[in-house]
């Protein structure tokens, strides 16, 4: 009977397509807006994702997110190194500072300093040069995405440089009135924050920034093999009074801050809710109309001996199939949208959790649509078939 139920639905092309379009549109809107939201949220903690190696990030206990500036005393590094279970710990500096480009323009930038000796914390993907080039005098690494954009050269300088509009290896910058030489470029994920990021060594980064008593932004910690990270984080907190986050925990701290302080959640939430409502209204209404149009046939099936349980299964199968197809179409269209705009500034991320959430929403839409119809079918008196 399930097969016949599906033929009943699919044979009514106009309504079938109407329901399908409603569900697919809801799925598209929920997935697409959700993916942009997730993409943006991932960008809020891209600095953490792009920093390789550490098991734990040790920070000032009052730090609210990774872009927050609450530096620690350098002695904290030695105290952390003394905690049982710490294999190694290296310093990282991060600060906002002033930048002067070769064409004389000024702008702000984020300077990140990584451990002078090990260079741990430098970006994993270095496209021009290598991390070791940071050991050269005044060397800095710049973001490949910025050399022609945020750090691009103005036309008159470009002309003087033989038509080159992009910052290149060997170009000299000024960071807070200190000389800096571009030694290479790196690739990192696009960030939620807008200032260009420049990597150099810890000591040099500190010198590029206004003098402060506290100069340690983060301590990157590697645990000894077999050490439970939760236990180690608690141990560090107990020994130093600092907070230690796993990579996921530090990402969550940043993401939650952005969610709470920017209103981004409610803005995207409205778009996602709109998709859900459109799905419920269009799919529910069309499915209900389909059922009403077919009420006499449901009545005939009841008279012929179809039980309420079978009718429920039939309606659920109809709703389930349009739900599945609509979900697939919507998610497919959203993925295509993301793929086509992949090379642009669009923030788009489609993790399985989002697909599951969208799937859940579509199930709810279909259940609501089916429930409206089922109610009519279940209370239907089979005697209707004798009333002409």
């Amino acid at each position, binding site marked *: *009977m399930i*097969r*016949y139920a599906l*033929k*009943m639905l*699919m*044979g*009514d092309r106009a309504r079938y397509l109407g329901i399908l379009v409603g569900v697919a549109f809801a799925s598209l809107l929920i997935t697409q807006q959700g993916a942009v939201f997730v993409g943006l949220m991932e960008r809020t903690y891209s600095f953490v994702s792009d920093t390789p190696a550490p098991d734990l990030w040790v920070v000032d206990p009052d730090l609210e997110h990774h872009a927050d500036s609450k530096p620690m005393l350098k002695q904290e590094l030695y105290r952390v190194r003394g905690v049982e279970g710490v294999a190694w710990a290296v310093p990282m500096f991060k600060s906002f500072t002033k930048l002067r480009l070769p064409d004389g323009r000024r702008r702000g930038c984020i300077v990140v300093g990584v451990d002078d000796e090990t260079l741990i914390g430098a970006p994993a993907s270095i496209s021009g040069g290598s991390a070791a080039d940071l050991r050269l005098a005044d060397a800095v690494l710049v973001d490949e995405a910025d050399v022609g954009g945020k750090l691009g050269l103005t036309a008159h300088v470009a002309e003087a440089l033989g038509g080159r509009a992009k910052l290149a290896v060997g170009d000299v910058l000024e960071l807070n009135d200190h000389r800096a030489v571009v030694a290479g470029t790196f690739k990192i994920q696009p960030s939620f924050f807008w200032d260009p990021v420049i990597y150099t060594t810890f000591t040099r980064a500190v010198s590029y920034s206004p003098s402060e008593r506290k100069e340690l932004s983060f301590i990157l910690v590697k645990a000894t093999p077999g050490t439970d990270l939760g236990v180690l984080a608690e141990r560090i907190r107990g020994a130093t009074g600092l907070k230690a986050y796993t990579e996921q925990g530090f990402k969550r701290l940043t993401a939650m801050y952005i969610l709470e302080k920017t209103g981004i959640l409610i803005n995207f939430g409205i778009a996602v809710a709109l998709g859900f409502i459109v799905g419920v209204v269009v799919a529910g209404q069309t499915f209900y109309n389909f059922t009403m149009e*077919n009420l*006499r*046939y449901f*009545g*005939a*099936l*009841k*008279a*012929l*001996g*179809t*039980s*309420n349980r*079978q009718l429920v299964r039939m309606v659920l199968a109809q709703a389930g199939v349009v739900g599945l197809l609509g979900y697939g179409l919507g998610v497919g269209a959203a993925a295509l949208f993301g793929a086509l705009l992949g090379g642009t500034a669009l923030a788009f991320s489609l993790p399985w959790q989002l697909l599951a959430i969208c799937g859940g929403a579509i199930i709810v839409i279909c259940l609501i649509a089916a429930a409206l119809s089922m109610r009519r079918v279940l209370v239907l*008196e*089979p*005697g209707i*078939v*004798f*009333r*002409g």
Partner: protein
Amino acid sequence: MSTAAPAHSMNPAASARGLAVRCRNVVKNYGTGQSVVRALRGIDLDVYEGELLMLVGPSGCGKTTLISVIAGVLDRDEGECSVFGRDYAQMTSAQRTRFRGETIGFVFQSYNLIPTLTIAENVSVPLLLNGLNRHEALRRANDMLAKVGLGERVKDTPLRLSGGQQQRVAIARALVHEPRLIVCDEPTSALDHETGHRVVELLKSVAMSGNRSLVIVTHDNRIFDFADRIAHMDDGQVDKIVGSAKELYGPNMQPGSPA
């Protein structure tokens, strides 16, 4: 209150058989209070195994209500109604649904064939509801369609057929699971005389072959001759049960005149 069928009007062969339907003092009201409509006012009626009984009478006299009660698709308010000894009032809703699916075949005035299914699929529905697998159900549906002369059209959808052909499909659907009682509501009302005649002829020849009982609600006095008995209803009561149309309307009755 109407009375049970008088002995002189029974088909002798039928009366020798068991009872298919037994209604006693069946009452059915629609609405409540001052707006109550008394559709059935204490019906007594027997239908015998192997008998074709026609329910006739003016519009609004309660024919359709009575057939709905007999078919178990409408609850009566008072009285008794049993089909092959089983009283609907003693069954749960699920038992009644199952009983209908196994025991009763339906032919509706407006056919009620699902337009998006092929006619073979439409006919196979009662078999699927009785637990047959789809392959076997379709095979038997095809056989039944061949019996009603539509063996070449099994893959057509109902809308490609004429009214008479659709009614033959409905008859095939009513018979395919070999029910013991078949109820038909105005099976010829949408058909011309010749087609209607052929449909009832078919219904009688195929349906009655297995000692089945048929109850046909009709206005169409052109088909009265097929009946073993005719029960005339008026104002919610069976006021007359006769063996032929002539007994009912007199020797001068003309086919096509109002019943």
